[in-house]
């Protein structure tokens, strides 16, 4: 009936009404379909991002597990290969037959055993210090970093210096350890790969941000390289840096200096009070 009326040329109102209604319906249905498909597309994209993030987290988790295992193996090797033989040798000096020996031999054996035990104590102390540097524990990040840089400079192979501009209040001990480990890893990388002649570290704060910058004149990496290495299966140390900084809600930036002469690494952290707030949120 409606079609018949529309086909009647006299009824222009009917025509407008018919096509207007069809047009409105087409627009409405089109809009609804568009919304549904658009949303599906957005969800697919979000899921893809989620998956990428999960993969990244997996890589970081694997890296941190591998690093932990390597650390355990190193401690086990130190204890087994160094402390074990030392203590076994000390035991040899102090065997049951010692009472049957003459006094001077006894004294010599006891002296040797004492020497070996002293060496073992030193060895265990070194292992313990490598796990938690005493300077860091007792005097804080600034002293520990200065100490580390002095040791590097002392070796004569590289000029290393550090300067803390605004570090009156110490961070929490566990956070200081994380930052120190990150600095250690970065310095280690510079020493191993960059052929730099100097490293300079500066610490600053700005607003609620805490910055640590490392400059060196060797071969370095940029943010793109860092992101690529982070996504690949290599670059265990860098992944470890990333996972440590994640704990502190920190960021790291690798860039080449404006002068194109130096490489710059910036660690950006939120101050502890703000960080706690962020964690709670």
């Amino acid at each position, binding site marked *: *009936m*409606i079609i018949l*009326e529309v086909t009647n040329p006299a*009824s222009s*109102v*009917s025509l*407008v*009404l018919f096509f*207007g*209604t069809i047009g*409105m*319906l087409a*627009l*409405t*249905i089109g*809009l*609804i379909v568009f*919304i*549904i498909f*658009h*949303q599906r597309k*957005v*969800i697919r994209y979000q*899921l893809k991002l*989620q998956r990428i993030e*999960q993969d990244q*987290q*997996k890589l970081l*988790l694997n890296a941190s597990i591998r690093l932990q295992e390597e650390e355990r193996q190193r401690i086990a090797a130190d204890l087994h290969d160094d402390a074990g033989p030392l203590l076994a040798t000390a035991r040899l000096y102090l065997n049951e037959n010692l009472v049957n020996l003459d006094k001077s031999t006894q004294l010599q054996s006891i002296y040797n055993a004492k020497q070996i035990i002293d060496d073992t104590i030193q060895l265990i102390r070194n292992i313990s210090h490598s796990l938690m540097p005493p300077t860091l524990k007792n005097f804080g990040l600034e002293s520990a970093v200065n100490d580390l840089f002095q040791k590097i400079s002392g070796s004569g192979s590289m000029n290393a210096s550090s300067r803390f501009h605004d570090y009156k209040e110490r961070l929490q001990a566990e956070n200081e350890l994380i930052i120190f480990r990150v600095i250690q890893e970065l310095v280690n990388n510079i020493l191993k790969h960059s052929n730099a002649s100097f490293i300079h570290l500066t610490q600053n704060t700005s607003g609620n941000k805490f910055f640590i910058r490392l400059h060196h004149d060797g071969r370095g990496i940029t943010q793109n390289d860092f992101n690529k290495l982070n996504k690949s299966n290599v670059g265990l140390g860098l992944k470890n840096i990333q996972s440590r900084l994640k704990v502190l809600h920190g960021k790291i930036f690798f860039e080449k200096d404006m002068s194109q002469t130096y490489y710059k690494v910036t660690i950006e952290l939120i101050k502890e009070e703000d960080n706690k707030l962020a964690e709670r949120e």
Partner: protein
Amino acid sequence: MLQLLAYFTEILPIIFYLIFLKRNRGEGLWVIFLYSLLSLLTELLFEILQRQIIYSIFTIVEFTLFSLFFYISLKEKRFKYIPIIGALIFYIVAISNFTNKKFDSLSVSLESILIIPYCILLLYEQIKDPSIIFVYYNKKFWVIIAFFLYFSATLFLYIYYSTLSAEQRSNYWLINNFFEILKNILLSIAFIMKKNDQRSYLTDNLDPDI
């Protein structure tokens, strides 16, 4: 036949709202229930009294309820002014053109013109809301679609209603009846569907290794 079916389907949203009352608490769905109830009562009253004024009053009440629903549903504060301003404009036009003799074409057309952008606005808010993962798992989506389709389909009919002949009116009124049925079915779907916990979708997709 279609007219009868349209009357019959008017009862469906009311029944389903009451059956699944627990599912439909909150979210301002009570406004839609009230609208369905008043719509049914209006039809019954019109059948008994045969007075055009019933529809004229109902149009004002209907738009007030829609404005309230959109006001409750819109989340962004700056958008909340829109149904208020729209309602003011509508009241001025509806009251100044209030008639008890013929179909209130102008008021109903203005109502459609205002409701369509409200629906688009609410849909836009829904797709922007990160807590809504799939819009079609949301009760309000079906309510919006019901009104969006109904008012889009009947807009031109209401605009040109006064210019149509009696025969044309009865013919074209089929559009209104058909989309009224569709609207009531969609509202029933909204009232029947479970309150969807959109978070379960996210947790289902999370890798258990992490």
